[in-house]
């Protein structure tokens, strides 16, 4: 018996509101199937199930707002007998297969789950928070899922809330620049859909929380290189000549793919910093920062970028940008990114020093592709298109030497565009 729980769609998500169920009791569900729409600070998100089975019971009604990890539905695994109506939630992993949605790395470092209880004890859903801490968090406006509990059984105490609030306040006077400012609008028609819109105020709060946490917790270091783009752009022009306009490739796909292939060579920058240690990402899932009308920003992931051919990657990118604007992102896209890229596009600034999206350990930034004097291999001077590629990385997880290798690898791949 699996419990389908309110997923954490990023480190900054505390609760979600069920907008609608896309399944009903008795329906068969497959891994990856979208089963519900959940309203979050990032807008309405299509939530996927991660288990094969039959929906046994829906535990939430549309309109209900519940904390992350609250059971939403019970799903009977294929071949399992129908269970009794009221079973207590099973203990957390070590049996991940029984969990419909496993705790995601994106939510882990701050909302560290309490240590597993003894096997006989059923774990209550949700965070353990003392009554006084809950009230204090409300007074201070501290989201509880970003407070590390130090009380009995990992419960959050007043002191934990106050120290989290102090940490946030220390950052408040000089909010770090977010990649939002740097991402230019992409020419995509906006399709406003009432139900699937997002609240810019709420999204601003979510960005503020995530970025404050990043600057509070992550010791960033920054590296930058200038990369000649004439080969890559020539390759792109040649490729696009044979393609109808809707299928033409944008430089962004080359940047994405080059970064993904470079991460294969430097996997130490692809993953998460959790519980005081580096955890490699399960694949190369690249978050792509997308600016939204109304001032928001999301960085949904494209999965396994290193394995996607360029046309498929372009289609995925178009689809992602379109859905980000219209509010149709999936839960896995919001939670799975192992490294995020911000690209300023053709009207953007020449370089960017990104702010890492926790708990990722690095972020790659591309400035605008601009024409500049360039000394080529033969020593001659020429006007060439170049791009500033920058890296912000978590100094707890890596050092500058490793970061330099990533930038060098990106450069190398962009000089051999036919291999992308």
């Amino acid at each position: 018996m699996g419990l389908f729980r309110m997923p954490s769609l990023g480190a900054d998500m505390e609760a979600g509101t069920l907008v609608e169920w896309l399944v009903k009791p008795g329906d068969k569900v497959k891994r990856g199937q979208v089963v519900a729409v959940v309203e979050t600070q990032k807008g309405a998100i299509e939530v996927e199930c991660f288990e094969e089975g039959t929906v046994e019971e829906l535990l939430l009604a549309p309109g209900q707002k519940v904390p992350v990890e609250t059971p939403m539905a019970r799903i009977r695994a294929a071949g399992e007998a129908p269970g009794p109506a009221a079973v207590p939630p099973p203990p957390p992993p070590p049996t991940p297969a029984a969990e419909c949605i496993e705790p995601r790395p994106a939510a882990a470092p701050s909302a560290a789950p309490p240590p597993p209880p003894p096997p006989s004890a059923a774990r209550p859903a949700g965070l353990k928070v003392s009554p006084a801490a809950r009230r204090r968090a409300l007074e201070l406006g501290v989201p509880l899922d970003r407070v590390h509990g130090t009380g009995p059984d990992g419960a959050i105490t007043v002191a934990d809330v106050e120290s989290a609030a102090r940490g946030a306040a220390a950052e408040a006077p000089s909010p770090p620049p977010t990649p939002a400012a740097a991402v230019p609008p992409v020419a995509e028609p906006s399709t406003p859909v009432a139900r699937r819109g997002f609240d810019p105020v709420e999204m601003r709060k979510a960005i503020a929380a995530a970025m404050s946490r990043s600057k509070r917790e992550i010791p960033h270091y920054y590296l930058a290189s200038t990369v000649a783009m004439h080969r890559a752009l020539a390759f792109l022009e040649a490729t696009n000549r044979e393609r109808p306009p809707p299928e033409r490739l944008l430089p962004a796909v080359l940047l994405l793919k080059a970064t993904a292939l470079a991460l294969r060579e430097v996997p130490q920058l692809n993953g998460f910093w959790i519980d005081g240690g580096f955890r490699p990402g399960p694949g190369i899932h690249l978050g792509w920062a997308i600016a939204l009308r109304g001032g928001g920003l999301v960085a949904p992931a494209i999965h396994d970028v290193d394995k996607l051919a360029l046309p498929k990657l372009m289609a995925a990118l178009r689809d992602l940008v379109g859905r980000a604007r219209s509010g149709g992102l999936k839960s896995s896209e919001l939670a799975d990114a192992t490294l995020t890229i911000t690209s300023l596009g053709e009207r953007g600034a020449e370089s960017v020093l990104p702010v890492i999206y926790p708990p990722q350990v690095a972020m790659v930034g591309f400035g605008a592709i601009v024409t500049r004097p360039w000394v080529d291999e033969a020593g001659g001077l020429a006007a060439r298109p170049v791009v500033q590629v920058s890296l912000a990385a978590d100094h707890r997880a890596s050092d500058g030497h490793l970061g330099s290798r990533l930038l060098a690898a990106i450069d190398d791949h962009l000089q051999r565009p036919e291999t992308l």
Partner: protein
Amino acid sequence: MSAPIVTYRECCKQGIRAALLADPRVFLMGEDVGRYGGCYAVSKGLLEEFGPERIRDTPLSESAFVGAGIGAAIAGMRPIVEIMTVNFSLLALDQILNNAATIPHMSGGQFAVPLVIRMATGGGRQLAAQHSHSLEGWYAHIPGLKILAPATLEDARYMLAPALLDPNPVLIFEHIMLYNMEGVLDPAVTSVDIEKAAIRRPGRDVTLVTYGGSLFKTLEAAEDLAREGVEAEVVDLRVLRPLDQETILASVRRTRRCVIVDEGWRSGSLSAEIGMRIGEEAFYELDAPLRRVCAVEVPMPYAGHLEQAALPSRERIVATVRALLRPGS
């Protein structure tokens, strides 16, 4: 000249002596209180000083002599009845509950019962399962009674006087491990109230609520904790009924955590009542689950090491607080 060292036993005796001297209606009655001097030697010498009319040995019949005390109180005397241990008081439970606690109510206030019953309580001297229990929590269940638990020398010396002035029956529980406790009676104290709990040690991190024989274990545990940087506030209940809820709640609201140390068994106990009151009145102030250190729920063992294992100990108190405040350690 410094004040003399006295024992808790001596303080109890001086309290009785002062009452006998102050009011001719006061007399002491109980098993072996006269010629033997009291089974814990509290009344040694009083027979010689006050004579057999006022220091009365009784037959071994708790129901009879407690009933006689109730009658004497209704008739205008101020009896002090001593019951050898709380376990034996169960033979007089009918008199205490159905008569002493009830007659003022059933008579519409026409009869007061200004009776004081003293009894020994608690374990620790290898007196086994019929002489060692802490049943004062049962008496604290009964409306119409006032229940006192003097833990300090001052309370042992001075609680008796206001108890005798009270028009209702008052039960005083003296823990057997306290009788030999020595100290200096604070010369500045000449009377005490029988309404308020007392903060015996201020602290900011956790409230330890206790009373009677557990007070000093709790204070010692608080010292151990202070060495680890944990400042425990120790509340001595003093009065088990009616509970001084305000003092308990005010302390818990400051510290946000509470451990109750009670030598009674925990099921249906005084500690359960205190915990519930905190849950009712201060739930939103709590920053940690409530915890208790109680006697293990067994008849008190005779064997010394088992008896010690069954009673609340300084170590168990420290460990319980540590688990609340420093769950990792």
